[in-house]
């Protein structure tokens, strides 16, 4: 079943046309990976879904409803969570406060909280500390934790493994696998190794256009295609 459809989306940032034609269908369940070089337009695609940039023309359809004109806050309330590239943690707030803001009611669901502690023990250690003092990787963990503290229908994640230690990346992969059983994840990644292990479907974006879509298994097997689209030959 289709969860999210991007339909001939064009996005301009100030006077620059960044996305030229992005058409994409994200099915419900599992991890959908979006790949592409630096500056290809991956982040812009996610931001356009969230309503942080406005695509025009083009539309975003979520569960059959056009959400491209909605305010970001309303998009979020449809059940879409966003983990931005720069993590977007609130440095002046403690870990606890960062997480509280991400809950619907202002109270924690103990089971979910415990699962988060299990995934990222560091968050428990620094619970009452202000987030600016966290290390780069710890901030990344907090950002992901915020997205999964509530049940959601779709999580948009922008390069979550950037700057993470290998062991954490593994933990994160496990976590995503688990989350993706109940929630769809749209994942932007540079770390192809990581993406390969998770993705079911995938797309490559290049210069603001979708250059390829297909199943991850096929793409992982096709070295020539990888080389052409991602300069992976090295």
């Amino acid at each position, binding site marked *: 079943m289709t969860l999210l459809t991007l339909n001939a989306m064009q996005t301009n940032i100030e006077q620059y046309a960044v996305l030229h034609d992005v058409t994409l269908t994200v099915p419900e369940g599992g991890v959908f990976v979006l790949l*592409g*070089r*630096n*500056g290809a337009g991956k982040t812009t695609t996610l931001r356009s879904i969230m309503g942080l940039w406005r695509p025009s023309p083009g539309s975003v359809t979520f569960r059959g409803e056009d959400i491209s004109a909605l305010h970001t806050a309303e998009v979020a309330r449809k059940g879409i969570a966003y983990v931005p*590239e720069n993590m977007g943690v609130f440095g002046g707030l403690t870990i606890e406060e960062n997480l509280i803001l991400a809950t619907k009611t202002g109270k924690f669901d103990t089971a979910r909280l415990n699962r988060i502690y299990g995934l990222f023990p*560091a968050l428990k250690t620094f619970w009452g500390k202000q987030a600016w*003092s*966290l*290390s*780069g*990787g*710890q901030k*990344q*963990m907090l950002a992901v934790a915020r997205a999964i503290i509530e049940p959601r229908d779709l999580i948009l994640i922008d*390069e979550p493994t*950037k*700057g*993470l*230690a*290998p*062991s*954490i*990346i*593994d*933990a994160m992969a496990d976590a995503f696998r688990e989350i993706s059983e109940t929630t769809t994840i749209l994942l932007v990644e*540079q770390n*192809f*190794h990581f993406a390969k292990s998770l993705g079911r479907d995938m797309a490559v974006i290049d210069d603001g256009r979708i250059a390829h879509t297909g199943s991850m298994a096929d793409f992982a097997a096709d070295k020539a295609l990888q080389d052409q689209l*991602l*300069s*992976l030959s*090295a």
Partner: protein
Amino acid sequence: MTQPSLVTKDLTIRFGGHVAVNQVNCEFRPGELTVIVGPNGAGKTTFFNLISGQLAASSGKVVKDGVEITKMSPSTRARHGIGRAFQLTNLFPQLSVLENIRLAVQAHSGDGWRLFKPVSSYKELAAKAERYLEATKLTDVALLPASALPHGDQRKLEVALLMAMEPDIYMFDEPTAGMSLDHTPDVLELIAEIKHDKSKTVLLVEHKMDVVRALADRIIVLHNGELLADGAPDEVMSSQIVRDVYLGKSGEAAA
């Protein structure tokens, strides 16, 4: 063996009750590239901050070429030949790429206090800045403000600033984080080049194992602020303890 250019003695910093760097003793020599690895929050960036002066040590010493620099301000340390690039990009956003680099060059040459001659009359300055622009392949965007660059180019500029400072000690903090694969080799080549100059000492924090393997002469491992292992790359990477705390399963697969 050459004299160490940089030595830390019992270097420690506490934030409240939390000890982020704990009694680290380490020596770094010219001509050697040391990669520092460790889990997130191990204290790698903090260790850099203590060496370059962004944070003041709670106890312990930092010694550069026999001179103790522990109490010096960051700018004084920079003038003593300690240079670093930052993990989170840290530039002069509204100044052009060229101006960014020129600033680093002129800090090194001590021209900051020239008051009344126009910048353009300093030919040597311009020539040097030009050189680093070319080295980092930023010539095309030299006149754009730094904030207008895409992420990858900003990371490169971060590296260019460090190069232009021409320090004795180079410290890179995850220079290729978030950089796509087509850009990464440029930066790695630059670092490798510095390594060839035998008078320079290089410290590198990096999580990407292929990068570590390609560049490291030596690896040290930090964990919970403590020095856990120190030695030749193969030796360190294959030790059980490093696998446990740092590499996890993927480490095993890769090793």
